[in-house]
C-alpha cells in the first residue's frame, strides 16, 4: 500500500499544564481501510484524532498528504481536505431537526435541495433517520447517524469515529459496522477509536495500539490475537495483575453468587413514574426490590430512563408518582441528605456534576454532605483537623493517588476522583448503595477496584443497585439483572439464565418469557 491518504510524523502534544499526551507518534492512514485506534483511557487516542481533524495543533511533528506537508488551523481546514470526525459527545442542536442540523454550516443549499441530497445519501449508506423530528426526540443511535450524515454530506475521505459504539445497542452496533464496511469498500478511510478489543477485532483491517502517548504496536487485524493486543494496551505495568489484563478482553469473570432475595428487601421501588427534564415520562411504572447481600443490576441502552430512575431514588428528582421504600420506610421525595441519614449512598453517574466539587480540596470533598455532622463541625465552625484526618484515612484505605489531601480535586485522575467519591459515600456506612455507571471512563485498574468494592459490599450483606450501560459489567456482577427499555423494565433474570439472543431482545425492548 504505497498510496496513503494522510500521514502523521513524530507528533508530540504537550498540554499547557505540562501533560504529555502524545510522544513522537507516527501514523499512516490509507484509503479504503478501517484503522483501529486502540488504547486505555488517557492513552492519547482522542488527542491524536483531534490533531488529525484540526481541532488541536501539535506541539511538534507534522502532517503529510501525498502532496506534501500540511498544517490545519481549524477543523475547517481538515474538512476541506475531507477529514471529518464524529465525537463521543455529539455536536448537535437538540431543538433542530436532522435536516436543520445538517444544514448548519453547509450554507448555500436550499432546504429542498438539501433534503433531496440527504435522502439519497441515506439510501446509499443505509443510515436512515427521521428527518423532521427535533433531534432531542431521537434515540442516541439515531443521533449518531445524524452526526455521521452531517459529516458525510461534506464528502469526507477520512471519517474518524471516537468510541462510536459506547452508546449503541448490539443491533445498532451491527448496523454501524455494516455501514462502515460499505464505506470502506468505496474507498473511504475510517479511523475507529475504541477500547473494546472485541470490536477492534471485528471491524478493523489494521490496529494501532497507543499506550501512554506512544505507539505501543501496530498489526494487521487478521494476524493478531486478542491477548496480544491486550498485552500491548496494558503493557507490563506493575500492579496490574494478569487477571485484570484478561478481564479487558474476556469480559469480567463471575465470582460466587450472593444470597439473593433473602430476608426483608432493603430497597423497594413500586410503580415509580418520573419525568425527564423535557417533561416527558422517562420512567413509566418501574417496580423492583433489592435485598441485602445482593447486587441488583439494571442494564439497558442509555437514555431509557435509567438516569431519571436513579435520580429519583437518590432524592435528586421528584417522582411523579409511585413509592420508594428504604429499609422499610417510605422515603419518596426526601432530599439526598435525609436519604443518606436513613442508610442510602449514591455513586453518581456524572461524577463532575453531582459527585465532586472540583475546585475544592480532597479534604473538603471528603465530607461533602456531612459538613453539618457533629463529627465535622462544632458550633458552626468546621473542625478542620477532623476533616483532614477523615480525608487522610479515606486516601489511605482506598489507595487514592493524590499529591495530598490539600490538593485540589481537579488535579486527580478520573479513576482517583471516582475512588474518592466511592470512599466518601461508603464512609457513610450505608445499607443501600446505588452505583450508576460506576466504572465509566475509568482505566482497567480503577474499574476493577470499583467492581471489587461492590462485590465486597455484597459480601458484607449490603444491598447494591448497579445501573450500568456496560453489559459485561452488569452481567458479571449482578445476582439478578433487570433490563430497562423506554422507561419500563422489560425483563428480569439471573444472568446465568440469559442467552445472548435473550439479552439482545431485552435490550431492544422485546419482552421475553414472562408471558
Amino acid at each position, binding site marked *: 500500500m504505497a498510496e496513503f491518504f494522510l500521514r502523521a510524523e513524530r507528533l508530540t502534544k504537550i498540554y499547557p499544564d505540562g501533560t504529555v499526551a502524545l510522544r513522537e507518534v507516527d501514523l499512516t492512514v490509507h484509503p479504503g481501510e478501517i484503522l483501529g485506534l486502540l488504547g486505555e483511557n488517557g492513552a492519547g487516542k482522542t488527542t491524536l484524532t483531534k490533531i488529525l481533524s484540526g481541532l488541536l495543533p501539535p506541539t511538534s511533528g507534522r502532517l503529510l498528504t501525498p502532496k506534501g506537508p500540511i498544517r490545519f488551523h481549524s477543523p475547517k481546514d481538515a474538512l476541506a481536505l475531507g477529514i471529518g470526525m464524529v465525537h463521543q459527545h455529539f455536536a448537535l442542536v437538540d431543538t433542530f431537526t436532522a435536516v436543520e442540523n445538517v444544514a448548519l454550516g453547509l450554507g448555500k443549499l436550499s432546504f429542498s435541495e438539501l433534503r433531496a441530497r440527504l435522502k439519497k445519501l441515506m439510501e446509499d449508506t443505509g443510515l436512515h433517520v427521521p428527518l423532521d423530528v427535533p433531534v432531542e426526540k431521537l434515540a442516541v443511535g439515531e443521533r449518531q447517524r445524524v452526526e455521521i450524515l452531517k459529516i458525510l454530506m461534506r464528502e469526507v475521505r477520512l471519517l474518524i469515529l471516537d468510541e462510536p459504539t459506547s452508546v449503541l445497542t448490539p443491533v445498532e452496533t451491527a448496523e454501524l459496522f455494516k455501514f462502515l464496511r460499505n464505506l470502506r469498500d468505496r474507498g473511504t478511510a475510517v479511523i475507529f477509536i475504541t477500547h473494546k478489543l472485541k470490536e477492534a477485532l471485528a471491524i478493523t483491517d489494521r490496529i494501532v495500539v497507543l499506550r501512554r502517548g506512544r505507539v505501543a504496536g501496530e498489526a494487521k487485524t487478521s494476524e493478531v490475537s486478542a491477548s496480544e493486543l491486550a498485552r500491548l494496551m496494558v503493557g507490563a505495568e506493575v500492579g496490574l495483575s494478569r487477571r485484570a489484563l484478561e478481564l479487558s478482553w474476556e469480559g469480567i469473570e463471575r465470582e460466587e453468587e450472593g444470597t439473593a432475595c433473602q430476608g426483608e428487601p432493603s430497597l423497594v421501588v413500586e410503580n415509580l413514574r418520573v419525568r425527564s427534564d423535557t417533561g416527558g415520562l422517562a420512567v413509566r411504572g418501574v417496580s423492583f426490590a433489592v435485598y441485602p447481600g445482593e447486587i441488583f443490576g439494571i442494564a439497558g441502552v442509555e437514555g431509557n430512563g435509567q438516569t431519571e430512575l436513579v435520580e429519583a431514588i437518590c432524592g435528586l428528582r421528584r417522582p411523579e408518582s409511585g413509592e420508594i421504600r428504604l429499609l422499610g420506610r417510605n422515603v419518596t421525595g426526601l432530599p439526598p441528605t435525609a436519604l443518606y441519614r436513613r442508610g442510602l449512598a449514591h455513586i453518581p453517574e456524572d461524577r463532575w456534576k453531582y459527585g465532586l466539587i472540583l475546585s475544592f480540596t480532597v479534604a473538603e470533598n471528603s465530607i461533602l454532605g456531612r459538613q453539618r455532622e457533629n463529627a465535622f*463541625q462544632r458550633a458552626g465552625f468546621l473542625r478542620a483537623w477532623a476533616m483532614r484526618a477523615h480525608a487522610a484515612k479515606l486516601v489511605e484505605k482506598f489507595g487514592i493517588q493524590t499529591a495530598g489531601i490539600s490538593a485540589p480535586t481537579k488535579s486527580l485522575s478520573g479513576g482517583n476522583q471516582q475512588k474518592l467519591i466511592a470512599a466518601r459515600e461508603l464512609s457513610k456506612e450505608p445499607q443501600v448503595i446505588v452505583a450508576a455507571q460506576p466504572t465509566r471512563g475509568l482505566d482497567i485498574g480503577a474499574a476493577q477496584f470499583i467492581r471489587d468494592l461492590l462485590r465486597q459490599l455484597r459480601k458484607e450483606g449490603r444491598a447494591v443497585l448497579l445501573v450500568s450501560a456496560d453489559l459485561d459489567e452488569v452481567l458479571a456482577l449482578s445476582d439478578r439483572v433487570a433490563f430497562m427499555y423506554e422507561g419500563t423494565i422489560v425483563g428480569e433474570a439471573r444472568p446465568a439464565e440469559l442467552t445472548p439472543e435473550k439479552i439482545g431482545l431485552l435490550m431492544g425492548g422485546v419482552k421475553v418469557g414472562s408471558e
Partner: protein
Amino acid sequence: MRRIGVGLRPLLESVLAGLIGLGVGAIIMRAWGYNPWPAYMALFKESFGSGYGLANALANATPLILTALTFAVGARAGLFIIGAEGMMYMGAMAAVAASFFRLPSGWHALFALLGAALAGMVWGLIPAVLKAYRGVHEVISTIMFNWLAHFFAFYLVANVLVDPIRAEKTISVAKTSRLPILFRGTDLSFGIAVAVGLAFLFYLLLWHTVAGYEIRAAGANPHAARYGGVSPRRTVLLVFILGGMAAGLAGAVETMGRPPTYAVYSGLTNIAGFGFDGIGVAMIGRIHPLGIIPAAIFYGGLQAGARLMQMEAKVPFEMVRAVQGAIVLALALPELARLFRVFVRRARFQEKKT
C-alpha cells in the same frame, strides 16, 4: 500560603498584571506626550510616600473594603451582586438618621453602625427573596434596586434628613456618633478597623465555618452542593444578608468617619460610586476577603495620588483617570476572566433547570 486560601500563583499573576497595567498606562501617557516616570513618581509618592498620604489612602480604602466584601461573598456563592451601591446608600441614610436619637458617646456610634448594617441587610433581602423564591436574576434586580435606593436617598436627603441651616446637605452626624479619627489632620477614622475586622470575619466565615463551606460549594458546583444538602435558598439569603451588612457599613463609615462635614450631600455626591468601585476592588483582590484589603488600599492610593499627579507632572485629570483605568483593568482581568466562566456555567445550569 494555601492554608489561608491564597495561593502564590494568584499573587504573582496580580503583580504581573499590575506591571502590565503600569506599562500600558506609560504607553498611553507617552503617546500623548507626557513623561510617565515623574507622573508615576508623583502618583505613588503622594499615596504611599508619606504617613499623611498613606492615611488618606487607607481612608479611601475603608468603604471600598466593605463594598468589595459584598461582591466577593456573592461571587463565592456564584451570585453577581451589583447592589452594593444601593445597600450602601441605605446604610448611609440609617447612619445619619441615628443622630435623631440621643445616646452616650461610643454607644451612639455602635448603635448607628448596627442600624446601618441592618438597613443594608434589609435592602439586600428584597432581591434575595426575589431570587430565592421567584428566580429573579440578581444582576437585574440589584441594578434596579440601586436606582430605587438612589432616589429614595435623594428624597430623604432633601426632605427628611436635611440640615435646616444648609439645605445642600443632611444634618451632620452627632458628635457622640462619630468614629474617632486615628491621626489628627487626616481622614483616617476608626472605620478602617471596622472594615479590616469585617474582612477577617468574612474570611473566617468562608473558610472555617459550615456556612462558608456551603456558600463556596454552591458557588463552585451548584449540583454537587444540592446533593450535599446545601439549600440554594438558604445560601442566597445568607449571602445577601452578609453582603447587605458589609455595604450598609460602608455607607456608615463614609458618613460617621468622614470629616469635615460628617454628612451626605444632596445628589449623594460624596458617597456615590463606592459600591461600583467595590466590584473592581473585589476582583483585584481575587474575591478573597484578605486579598481585598491590599487591593482596596492600592485602589484608594491611586485615588489619593491623582491630585499630585496632576499638579506635579502636569498630567491632565482625564489622562490620570485613563492611566488609572488601565492599571485597575489589568489587575481585575484575571479574576474577571474566571468569573465570566462561572457566569456562563451558571447560565447553562439555569437553562437546564427550567
